[in-house]
């Protein structure tokens, strides 16, 4: 197993090496998914049945204690998946118990059933839902913030718009996943190890690719496109490593939401821990930027690179440190994101646009702006589900990005200067 981990680290630049490491996914076409709702947690013991479009039964499965189900299929094609609404726990209803699925060759196709539970939507008063969504948004926004600080600082110090930053998040989550699930290391220790690996990968990015490119005087637009190429390479290396499905960590599964503040909102223990840890890490980063020598140097280089260089700051060393910090933070954010939304090969890319939204909202190139902007984006995305369907919540976040660019392109905390 070790060679797989080593390969993953090395693969940052040599994507081809994956050929040597074994695939993590099982073979054959499958339908997989998870039944869960926010109040009940994962739902166990519900039968999921799959038929062909003609109605012939192909197979069924009962959800396990994590709410997961998995049904093997005879081949690629169109199928219909049902759940038995009568088996759902009391208070949980499904908008549609039937889903049409198209499964491609060799793919594990995920199926999601839209479940609604009484606690949200119908049962409680409106203030409670607002608060609930706000706290969920805060948790999500803090995750975006942790990952986005690196993105913003990298832009500030090098001018690079790094489209491969999402992959740093996904790689971090995956490294922690491999240490946690394959080696059986408890997630907290796995995370610490992964953060060290993440810092290494960030540093490797700078030393192996971006510093040589700067030396060659590669243009910023060219570097932007290079980062897109890197992002594609890394994303599909992860797909080969992880397979197409989503997988949870080995620890902290299936937690029930506990009531807080006299029962007006609920939160699982891991979500609460995620919020607290995010705040602690962000405060630590802020203190580092504010108080330590290297932190001040980072802000100085981000502010004005030439001036920083002429006042004796070793700019290359600062940039290397920024990359390592960015890699470590992206990894940590990736683990938290994987904890709430499971680990998937494309998780980083899904987060990337929201990271850009947060960074631009706060002011591209600033550390604190990225923090504030990201939290606003996270809260906005979650709160928007009060009025728009859940599946469209990211649309709200992306629209916010576009609106900000119209109204104040330099961002909330960015200098009020022309950026065009």
């Amino acid at each position, binding site marked *: 197993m070790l060679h797989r981990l080593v390969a993953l680290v090395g693969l940052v630049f040599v994507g081809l090496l994956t050929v040597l490491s074994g695939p993590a996914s099982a073979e054959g076409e499958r339908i997989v998914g998870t039944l869960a709702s926010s109040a009940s947690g994962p739902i166990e013991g519900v039968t999921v049945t799959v038929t062909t479009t003609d109605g012939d039964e192909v197979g069924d499965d009962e959800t396990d204690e994590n709410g997961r189900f998995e049904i093997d299929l005879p081949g690629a094609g169109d199928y219909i998946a049902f759940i038995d609404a009568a088996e759902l726990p009391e208070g949980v209803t499904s908008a549609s118990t039937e889903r049409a699925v198209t499964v491609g060759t060799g793919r594990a196709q995920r199926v999601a059933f839209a479940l609604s539970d009484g606690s949200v939507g119908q049962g409680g008063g409106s203030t409670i839902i607002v608060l609930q969504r706000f706290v969920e948004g805060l948790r999500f926004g803090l995750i975006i913030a942790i990952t986005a600080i690196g993105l913003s600082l990298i832009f500030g110090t090098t001018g690079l718009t790094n489209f491969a930053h999402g992959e740093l998040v996904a790689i971090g989550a995956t490294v922690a996943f491999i240490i946690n699930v394959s080696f059986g290391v408890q997630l907290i220790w796995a995370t610490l190890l992964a953060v060290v690996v993440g810092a290494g990968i960030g540093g490797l990015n700078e030393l192996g690719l971006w510093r040589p490119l700067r030396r060659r005087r590669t243009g910023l637009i060219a570097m932007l496109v290079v980062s897109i190429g890197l992002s594609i390479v*890394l994303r599909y290396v992860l797909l080969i490593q992880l397979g197409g499905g989503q997988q949870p960590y080995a620890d902290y599964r299936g937690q029930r939401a506990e009531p807080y503040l006299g029962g007006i909102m609920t939160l699982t223990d891991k979500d609460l821990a995620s919020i607290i840890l995010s705040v602690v890490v962000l405060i630590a980063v802020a203190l580092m930027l504010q108080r330590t020598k290297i932190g001040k140097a980072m802000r100085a280089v981000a502010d004005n690179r030439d001036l920083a260089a002429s006042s004796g700051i070793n700019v290359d060393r600062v940039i290397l440190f920024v990359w390592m910090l960015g890699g470590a933070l992206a990894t940590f954010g990736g683990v938290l994101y994987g904890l709430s939304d499971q680990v998937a090969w494309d998780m980083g890319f899904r987060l990337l646009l929201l990271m*850009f939204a947060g960074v631009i909202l706060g002011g591209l190139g600033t550390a604190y702006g990225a923090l504030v902007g990201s939290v606003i984006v996270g809260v906005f995305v979650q709160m928007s589900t009060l009025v728009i369907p859940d599946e469209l919540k990211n649309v709200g976040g992306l629209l916010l990005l576009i609106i900000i*660019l119209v109204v104040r392109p330099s961002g909330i905390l960015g200098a009020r200067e022309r950026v065009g």
Partner: protein
Amino acid sequence: MDVVTILTNSLQAAFGPLAAFYALLALGLNLHFGYAGLLNFGQAGFALLGAYSVAVTSTRYDLPLWVGVLVAILAATIFALLLGLPTLRLRADYLAIVTIAAAEILNLVVRSRVATPVTGGTQGISQFSQDFDALAPWSTFERFDFFGIRYSGKDLWAMTVGWSLVALLCLLTWMLMRSPWGRVLKAVREDEDAARALGKNVYLFKMQALILGGIFGALGGVLYALAVTTAQPDAYQTSLTFFAYTVLILGGAARVLGPVAGAIIFYFLLAFTDNVLFQLTRGRDPIVPADILTASDAFQLRFIFVGLGLMALLIFRPQGIFGDRREVSLDAR
């Protein structure tokens, strides 16, 4: 290893309808990135609009094909205006982020349950190419053989229309770039302030380029949807835009025929590696054992190759095969 099959399959792909589709997308991007220096990463969104315009007008409203094409052009124009208005005054990378976000919004909306009655959700819309197929001068069900390379009648018809459109748009690009309009556009790319100092409305020129290139992309989407008779959101994800950029940069940006050469070479190489990997991994006893590389993993390798190719091109030969380095705008202003 069956070398003849690999070569004929690769050649078939190099001139197939899909290659024409990528050529059209890249022709649009050539106007944006090559001539105007605009970083449009939302070309997949333009193609999506084109595909769904024909699909929705013909299946939901029973309108003839030409209406669908007009709607596609109109939709692309509006989308370009919406994208351009906030961002064309800003730095290049802002346009990149906004266009990628806007294309993602379109994709999310099209596949959402809310829009399913119109767009068919994740399943998309199919069976709307009868009008198009009926125009073919030969039977679309027959198979045709050219020196061992086989195409179905339908593919051949889509290719004929597609490559004719490519030729037409190449001619248009060539004429435009020889005109005063094209010279101003290139001036904007080279030095925006200088163009402004000469009294040119830089913003307007950029907007016109964005709209025109977007329409090229939408026409590509129309063609692709008609060729495969489905409009399905998975086909128009961000990776489509990145592939189109690879095509453009491979052929050479700011060259009229760059995107065309790029599409043919790109698809030849892609099909070639796909076929070689397929031959290596297929069957019960593959040449490369399954515990080293499985057939489904082999298919994903194409994306890794494209990514590596894109990186290598930008680092070592940003002007592509036929381009001129001085003409490729690679620095943000």
